[in-house]
């Protein structure tokens, strides 16, 4: 589903990714772990198409399509969801308006009919319930005044509504207390654990992986995947640290 080959990328002329290769198949959950500064967030932003993150070499295909050729909004319409480490606040735009605009823009790009206001609210209510987020929160402005945990849960509600094929979740577990971590983990499973979907979890810690069992764990260091293993690799890392394992 996602195939990254020899990816090199830089920001402001500074090389961050140095030949990263990774393949995630349909129905799989992969975790990427790594120390600070390894390039984890850069990888997420490059895949999302953030301006200023320049790919200098290598390729990324998503269901066989050259993803690097697509604009960020086209990647979303093609089925990519990027979960932000720091979800952005948008004063003056409600979650409901934002998400309805997002969903209908994606549907339009795929040649589907837009959802009506009523249909959309029904869907939003269902997904908010799944993540135990009060529907009132969705009437408020996007992420404005949300706690760290509420922002992350709201991200997962967005993911539920947009129903992507591939989710790249950048430290979705940071800022969550233990109960919220379980809710978010269960949300990821409910929304994404399907044979035609895939997840790339970027995380520092093993704890989210207790709830979302990865099929593969990769260690990212200095802009490359330096080691790949099964779920046991995450436990080993937790015990012994990056320096000993990678």
């Amino acid at each position: 589903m996602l195939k990254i080959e020899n990816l090199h990328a830089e920001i402001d002329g500074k090389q961050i990714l140095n030949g990263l290769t990774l393949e995630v198949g349909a129905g799989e959950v992969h975790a990427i772990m790594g120390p600070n500064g390894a390039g984890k967030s850069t990888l997420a932003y490059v895949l999302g198409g953030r301006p200023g993150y320049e790919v200098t070499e290598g390729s990324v295909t998503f269901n066989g399509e050259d993803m690097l050729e697509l604009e960020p909004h086209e990647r979303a319409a093609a089925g990519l969801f990027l979960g932000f480490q720091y979800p952005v606040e948008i004063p003056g735009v409600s979650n409901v308006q934002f998400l309805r605009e997002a969903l209908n823009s994606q549907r339009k790009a795929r040649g589907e009919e837009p959802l009506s206001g009523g249909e959309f609210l029904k869907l939003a209510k269902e997904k908010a319930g799944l993540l135990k987020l009060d529907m009132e929160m969705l009437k408020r402005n996007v992420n404005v005044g949300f706690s760290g945990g509420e922002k992350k849960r709201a991200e997962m509600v967005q993911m539920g509504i947009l129903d992507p094929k591939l989710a790249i979740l950048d430290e979705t577990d940071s800022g969550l207390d233990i109960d919220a971590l379980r809710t978010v983990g269960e949300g990821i499973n409910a929304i994404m654990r399907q044979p035609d979907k895939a997840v790339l979890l970027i995380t520092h810690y093993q704890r989210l992986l207790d709830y979302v069992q990865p099929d593969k764990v990769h260690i990212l260091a200095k802009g490359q995947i330096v080691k790949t293993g099964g779920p046991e690799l995450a436990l080993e890392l937790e015990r012994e640290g990056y320096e000993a394992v990678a």
Partner: protein
Amino acid sequence: MSDLATLPTTRDEDWRYADPDALKELTAEVLDDWQEVTLSAGETSVQSFVLDDTNPGVTRVRLALGEGARAEIYAIASASEYARLEVEVTLTRGSHFEFGGVTIGGGDVTREFVTRVTHAEPEATSNQTIRAVHWNRAIGNFLGRIEVVRDAQKTDAAQNFRAILLEKGASANTKPELEIFADDVKCAHGAAIGALDPMEGFYMAARGIPPEVARKLQVQAFVADAFAEMQDEAKAEELLGKVLDRLGDAQL
């Protein structure tokens, strides 16, 4: 015949950011054409002015408010040629003036609001919220004078101007002018000029919203403050719609 001696130029403080070429076309008739509104004690009035292509040029309004009266003016300056709304207000005890205005547009065009608010008696309040959104080589201006006369204690006057420039080459000017002769008053003014937040734009794109729709949402959120005090929500929607229609013309 127009009296050339009285016609303004950009050397006049109140016209310093105006379009000099447009000023040459002005006539005394236009300048003398004040729309006068007098509100008696406790009366309320809500007016809106849309200076679009059907109504460019200079529009002048003068308001006199009786005790406890409330006047609200909401305005858009979006014409494809010079557009200027001037509002002069005299407030008496306990009265309130609310102004919400948006200048929006591109081209090589100047659009501006000029307000002169006199707090002539104690306990009057005024609040002005102006938003400017421009591109190409357009200019958006707000000149706001607040005069608080001697003994107009407990005056509470506020003005806030913010501009977003969508392209290099566009500009915005603001000139708050506070003349305060009473000592127990609150007068606040703020101004900021910037660009649309690119991180907001990327976040929207990451959710599938194309750039032109994202820009519209951002501008909508930005200008909405100007109409936030409007009780008539349908009217507020209508004004917001006119603003966003103009944005739709932008070739960026």
